[in-house]
């Protein structure tokens, strides 16, 4: 926390100076900086996974009190009228603390010559799958802790490649029907699924940086009688390229004015589940996602995402060909869905409530083991004091059942974790509204 605040002050000063220097150039260079900090009260019997605990949330009793969630800087630069670059740098003080990039990409939007509007992105970026995370720095305007789905997308899914997208108005000139399609090929993301499987579904706002090394729950070491005799620390760098084969995603989206949005997408990292490089295994992870966004009467907004996928990890052999003592071949299905209702009151107050449901379970035909099963409620209030300052309160309660806790770590198989966050965000912007 102290480190983070020490960093925040000079970075704001630096940004102000840089802004002054760049201001002469209009809004060709845009810089936004945000500092998120607050007070946390949390309960988990098992600590936080970020502190090498078994708990699934970002904070536990050990983290009570003042906390800095994130300091980030977003730079947008215009290279040409239709070509721009976006770079987002994050500082966090948990797990592999320090500074790192979350996104860095070039974006080309040619001027449409017809009803088809094309866009191409190249670099490291988020796929357009989250309905919640629409703000600068992939933040959510609704709650501080993202849904289980979007938390995971922020942790392990970050294509490093090229994405093409196109939108098209359907029908007459003023038709409110709009179709969007997107497709991408990418490298990286080969270990995606590792963290999800070992830790289970989580809900927080810590986005993995491209160079992050995240702790996994310790790897049990079995003897020949199948008894756990010890544990070994293990980590994952989620965006590593291991098998040198590209992954892909694609999706289709239909909108009706600003009232209805339906999206269907498929992601497949196409990783070789037997590939091993630089200390990390490939996990073959693929999923289908359906997203729904609706503007309802009484100024209510509804968001829902449903993600259903599977992950494969064959730990049967070591890269040198010897047999691994870990017999736990992973061939699991994972699924999560959430439904959120949100209402903005008088423009700058927002109330949101979200229900998340999640599961990771071994597929049929293999020894039954419930890797994760549970649900969570989130209640959030946010007040936008000004473009610079916002504050809010969030209550999150998650119930999980994991046979893994009992079988691997001799812990209770069920847990209830909760977290109360009182948070403030301060933003400054150069050549842009903050």
């Amino acid at each position, binding site marked *: 926390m102290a480190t983070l605040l020490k960093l925040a002050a000079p970075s704001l000063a630096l940004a102000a100076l840089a802004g002054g220097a760049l201001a002469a150039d209009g809004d060709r260079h845009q810089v936004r900086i945000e500092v998120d900090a607050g007070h946390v009260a949390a309960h988990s019997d098992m600590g936080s996974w970020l502190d090498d605990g078994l708990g699934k949330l970002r904070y536990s009793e050990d983290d009570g009190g003042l906390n800095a969630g994130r300091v980030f800087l977003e730079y947008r630069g215009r290279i040409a009228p239709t070509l721009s670059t976006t770079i987002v740098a994050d500082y966090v003080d948990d797990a592999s603390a320090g500074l790192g990039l979350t996104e860095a990409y070039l974006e080309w939007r040619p001027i449409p010559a017809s009803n088809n509007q094309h866009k191409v992105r190249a670099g490291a970026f988020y796929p*357009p799958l*989250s309905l919640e995370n629409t703000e600068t720095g992939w933040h959510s305007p609704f709650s501080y802790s993202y849904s289980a789905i979007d938390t995971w997308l922020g942790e392990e899914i970050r294509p490093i490649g090229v994405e093409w997208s196109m939108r098209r108005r359907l029908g007459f000139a003023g038709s409110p029907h709009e179709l969007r399609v997107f497709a991408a090929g990418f490298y990286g993301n080969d270990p995606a699924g590792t963290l999800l499987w070992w830790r289970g579904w989580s809900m927080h706002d810590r986005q993995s940086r491209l160079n992050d090394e995240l702790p996994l729950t310790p790897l049990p070491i079995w003897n020949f009688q199948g008894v756990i005799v010890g544990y070994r620390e293990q980590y994952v760098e989620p965006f590593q390229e291991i098998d040198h084969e590209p992954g892909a995603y694609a999706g289709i989206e239909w*909108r009706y*004015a600003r009232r209805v949005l339906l999206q269907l997408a498929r992601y497949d990292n196409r990783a070789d589940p037997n590939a091993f490089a630089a200390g990390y295994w490939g996990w073959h992870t693929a999923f289908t996602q359906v997203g729904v966004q609706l503007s309802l009467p009484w100024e*209510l*907004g509804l968001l829902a995402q449903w993600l259903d996928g599977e992950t494969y990890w064959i730990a049967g052999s070591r890269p040198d060909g010897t047999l691994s003592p870990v017999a736990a071949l992973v061939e699991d299905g994972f699924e999560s869905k959430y439904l959120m209702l*949100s209402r903005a009151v008088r423009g700058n107050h927002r109330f949101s409530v979200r229900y998340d449901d999640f599961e990771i379970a071994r597929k049929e035909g293999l020894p039954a083991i419930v890797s994760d099963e549970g649900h969570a409620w989130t209640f959030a209030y946010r007040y936008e004091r000004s473009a610079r300052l916002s504050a809010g309160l969030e209550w999150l309660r998650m119930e999980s059942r994991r046979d893994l806790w009992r079988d691997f770590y001799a812990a209770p198989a069920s847990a209830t974790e909760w977290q109360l966050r009182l948070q403030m965000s301060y933003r400054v912007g150069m050549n842009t509204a903050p």
Partner: protein
Amino acid sequence: MPTSRAIRPSVQSALCLLTLGMAGGCAAAALDVTVVDEHGAPIELVAVYAVPDKPVASAPAKPTAVMDQKHKAFVPHVLVVQTGTSVDFPNNDTVSHHVYSFSDPKSFELPLYKGDAHPPLVFDKPGIVVLGCNIHDDMLGYIYVVDTPYFATTDDSGKARIAALPAGGYGVRVWTPRARPGDLPPDVTVTLDGADRGVALQIKGKLAAEHDQGGSGLSWQRY
């Protein structure tokens, strides 16, 4: 929301006003048009225009029209102009816009700018010009170019007044981006003889949602 804009009297009408009382048949009248939907509810921002039976002696001085950009929106959402009118596109936002259109009557591009960086453009073909911003996907506007100096746009009570119409026969037409072309009412023929007239028109069929509808505060521009 912009309110109804009745056009200024054309030069021809002005000439008529000068000669009023000296010659018959030149008296100017106003045409009040009300546009309602299939349920009888008023529709805002409908282009209403009257096409004279006899060609109008061309009115050379057409004032420059303005399609403003404020709060990342085109203002007005629908602008009606006569063929040959110059339209200015000032950007009154603090962010740059890159305005373009790929529509047949006027395909153009105003590269990245703020303020009044580009000279006005002349819209010399009638029809629908759909406007977009290459930076802000959600910005949408229309310029409807008509072949007559007599036009107006409905206000929030669905009413529009076309002022200073010289006596004669007219075909009254309407257009809104929210209606399918086939749902627009056929021409209504009106003969004016110096007295104000009122016309009510109904657009059949279901109207498309207004572009900016949805007060839920959800974000619709995601990537």
